[in-house]
């Protein structure tokens, strides 16, 4: 289900058109080139789920739906992308859910019964939110967005709003638009980068997928196609500086020029010959580009998403044809450390770091999120997650993971947004795959990622139905935009249907102790594209997570695991210094286990956790 990926020059396991959903999968023989994952056979419970909008069939492993809440009435229509939900942000007991036509604020004090606190109408595709204190930032990209949020499109260019909207949500029941910050290429997404020194300042790195807006000279933007031109607004990310105590003063202060020097088109003989051939092909009219005109620069100039990891001063830029690693120690002067391109990516889309910053997962949004790219016949080496390791500021490609379940032609599906599930000793990622459902994968071993849990619904549209009775046409776009773990639950923004909350249930791939350890991690505020660093308090579930993992990988003998389990049970029944003594004694024994264990580092990590808990048991 994974493989080490190399540039596809070496590649030709033309992925697996061979295994249909109903046919047994035949894994391609390992070769020097990439070996795609294979879909499971007809036994996968996700096959053949009943289609439906609210009544679709479901299949799950390791995840249980706690609540599903339909969209608020003002967004409850299905018309292409017009009313779809987008990304989410978290703070206190609220979830901020973007929508292409506004946003919702949910009170999730009781995850079994989310309460709609506000639904705000504002045409703002794609509406990705970030919450900082009482300020909510919303991305606006489409050229039909207006400064006044209204419908009807832009008749006068001065009314166009492409950039970042700032709302005051101190009263979450009555959000108030306080500023529209215009940017040169609009804002498909944006990423929070706190000032490392001044808690009153945050920066927003703005990713826009368009060219420079023709009407943006009014906002100080300059078009231009020369990547080396320091004044052009094309080859940069606009950076907005926000004084939190005076957000009306938020403004674009600089451009992050993280593309400079990347991917200028080759000027080889082959390129010139190609251009000449093209000219000939145009029947003599083709002199248009033959007069020494520079080749079109085809290197990246936009990122789809950038993920900041402020604790590590790092940023991973998912920038169309490149994945970038950037040092953001000084947010106004980011420095590119490394860039990777791989022809097995259609579109470097988003990124998630491992908690220790030694790995980064880049997703590929092949098909743009609207295409059904997880079919049994879909290319396996496209549209999934690629795991890279990071060492001394350089990235190295490792394994590849794609949803191991064939979806139908009616289901838009590709790797999409997610974040970490905090479990000691493991790197786990939870993410949405649109109508492929939500999925948790383990990338602890960067060469061998695998699936840990999933939840999937049947397609919204029935097969071979050009017009649904309700008037919905085919190609209804739906599924999970993003799925994120936050304070004990997984929250998923469903594009068409609404808002899902899940809880984890133990399986052989994720134990009750690991789930309990995850629940010890609490975050007041969570913006997934500005990745928080998490730590575990000293606690029994943390120790037992390691013990369970040593059972799973047989990294320590069963006898010793059993003895350690008994000692931990004894300590759990004790308190104060008695517990401390039991644990100190146990830590010493576990230290001695390291040498004889096959998974030494995990045994060592467990000993450290036992010692850490002993230290607070006084």
């Amino acid at each position, binding site marked *: 289900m994974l493989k080490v990926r190399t540039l*596809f*020059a070496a*590649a*030709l396991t*033309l992925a697996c*058109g*061979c295994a249909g959903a109903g046919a047994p999968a035949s894994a391609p023989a390992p070769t020097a080139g990439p070996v795609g994952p294979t879909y499971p056979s007809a036994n996968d419970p996700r096959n053949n789920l009943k289609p439906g909008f609210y009544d679709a069939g479901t299949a799950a492993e390791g995840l249980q739906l706690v609540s599903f809440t339909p969209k608020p009435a003002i967004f409850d229509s299905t*018309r292409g*992308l*017009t009313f779809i939900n987008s990304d989410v942000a978290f703070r206190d007991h609220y979830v901020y859910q973007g929508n292409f036509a506004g946003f919702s604020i949910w009170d999730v004090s009781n995850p079994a019964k989310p309460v709609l606190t506000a639904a705000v109408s504002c045409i703002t*595709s*794609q509406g990705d939110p970030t919450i900082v204190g009482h300020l909510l930032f919303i991305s606006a*990209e*489409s*050229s*039909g967005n207006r400064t006044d949020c209204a419908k009807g*499109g832009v008749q006068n260019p001065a009314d166009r709003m492409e950039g970042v909207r700032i709302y005051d949500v101190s009263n979450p029941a009555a959000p108030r638009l306080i500023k529209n910050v215009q940017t040169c290429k609009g804002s498909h997404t944006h990423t929070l980068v706190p000032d490392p020194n001044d808690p009153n300042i945050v920066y927003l790195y703005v990713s826009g997928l*368009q*060219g420079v807006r*023709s009407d943006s000279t009014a906002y100080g933007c300059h078009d231009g196609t020369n990547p080396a031109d320091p004044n052009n607004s094309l080859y940069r990310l606009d950076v907005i500086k926000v004084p939190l105590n005076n957000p009306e003063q938020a403004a674009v202060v600089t451009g992050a020029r993280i593309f400079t020097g990347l991917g200028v*088109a*080759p000027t*080889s003989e*082959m*390129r010139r010959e*190609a251009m000449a*051939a*093209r000219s000939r*092909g*145009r*029947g003599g*009219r083709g002199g248009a580009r033959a007069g020494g005109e520079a080749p*079109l620069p*085809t*290197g*990246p100039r*936009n990122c*789809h998403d950038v993920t900041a990891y402020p604790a590590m001063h790092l940023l991973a830029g998912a920038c*169309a*044809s490149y994945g970038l690693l950037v040092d953001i120690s000084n947010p106004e002067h980011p420095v590119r450390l490394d860039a990777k391109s791989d*022809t097995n990516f*259609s*579109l470097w889309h988003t990124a998630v770091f491992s908690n220790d910053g030694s790995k980064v997962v880049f997703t590929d949004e*092949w*098909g*743009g999120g*609207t*295409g*059904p*790219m997880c079919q*049994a*016949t*879909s*290319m396996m080496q*496209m549209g999934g997650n690629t795991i890279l390791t990071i060492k001394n500021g350089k990235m190295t490609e490792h394994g590849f993971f794609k949803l191991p379940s064939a979806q139908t*032609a009616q289901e838009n599906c590709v790797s999409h947004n997610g974040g970490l599930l905090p479990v000691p000793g493991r790197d786990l990622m939870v993410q949405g795959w649109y109508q492929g459902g939500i999925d948790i994968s383990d990338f602890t071993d960067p060469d061998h990622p695998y699936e840990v849990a999933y939840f999937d619904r049947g397609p919204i549209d029935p097969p071979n139905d*050009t017009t649904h009775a309700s008037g919905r*046409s*085919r*190609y209804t776009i739906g599924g999970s935009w993003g799925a994120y773990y936050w304070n004990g639950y997984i929250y998923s923004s469903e594009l068409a249907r609404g808002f899902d909350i899940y809880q984890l249930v133990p399986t052989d791939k994720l134990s009750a102790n690991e789930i309990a350890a995850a629940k010890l991690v609490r975050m007041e505020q969570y913006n997934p594209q500005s990745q928080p660093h998490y730590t575990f308090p000293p606690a029994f579930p943390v120790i037992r997570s390691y013990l369970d993992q040593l059972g799973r990988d047989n990294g320590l003998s069963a006898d010793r695991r059993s003895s350690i389990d008994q000692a931990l049970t004894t300590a759990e029944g004790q308190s104060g210094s008695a517990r401390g003594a039991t644990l100190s004694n146990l830590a010493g024994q576990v230290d001695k286990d390291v040498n004889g264990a096959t998974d030494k580092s995990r045994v060592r990590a467990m000993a450290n956790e036992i010692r850490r808990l002993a230290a607070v048991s006084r």
Partner: protein
Amino acid sequence: MNSLTRPGPAFALIAAALLLVHVPTAQAQNPMPGMGDMPGMDMNLPPVKIPAGADYTEADVRFMQGMIAHHGQAVYMTSLAKAHGASDHLLTLAQKISQSQIAEIGLMQGWLRANGQFAPDSSAWRHMMMPGMLTADQLAQLDAAHGQEFDRLFLTFMIQHHEGALKMVQDLFATPLAGQDIDVSVFANDVHTVQTAEIGMMQRMLSTL
């Protein structure tokens, strides 16, 4: 059996539609790319009626209709690769372009139908000429090539073809009031982003042939 010889149902249908009709003749009457840039020149397309209150314009409808034809020809080009002895590397690229653009044809048809507009089928390229599309002469050259020469011509022509798609997107957004419908806007930006990246990839492939 590999996936080019046993593709998905959607591919099979389109491939069948493409292969039943033989090599294009309509382009011969209009051999100059650029001359047929306006899809409205195709007499087979019905006139566009825009309902009151719509977010889209005639230019949006023509863009979607024209891009179906544009994509249809790209998919046809990719269908030649296997039989013409393309390299493994090129076959992978062709498969990617084919699967990507077949999905997008479905999306465009879905949008047009949902808005009560005429949705061309994937063989529309045989009687519509959009920027960058191959002439009958170019198609004949491609069809006559084999092996490395096929790779070279395919890349050369597909770069031309993709650059035409970029022009279509630029023309759309340069048209007053067009490109504001959210589906069209998102799709057009996707086309621009993905095809720009693919042009770079194809240029690199071409330079290492």
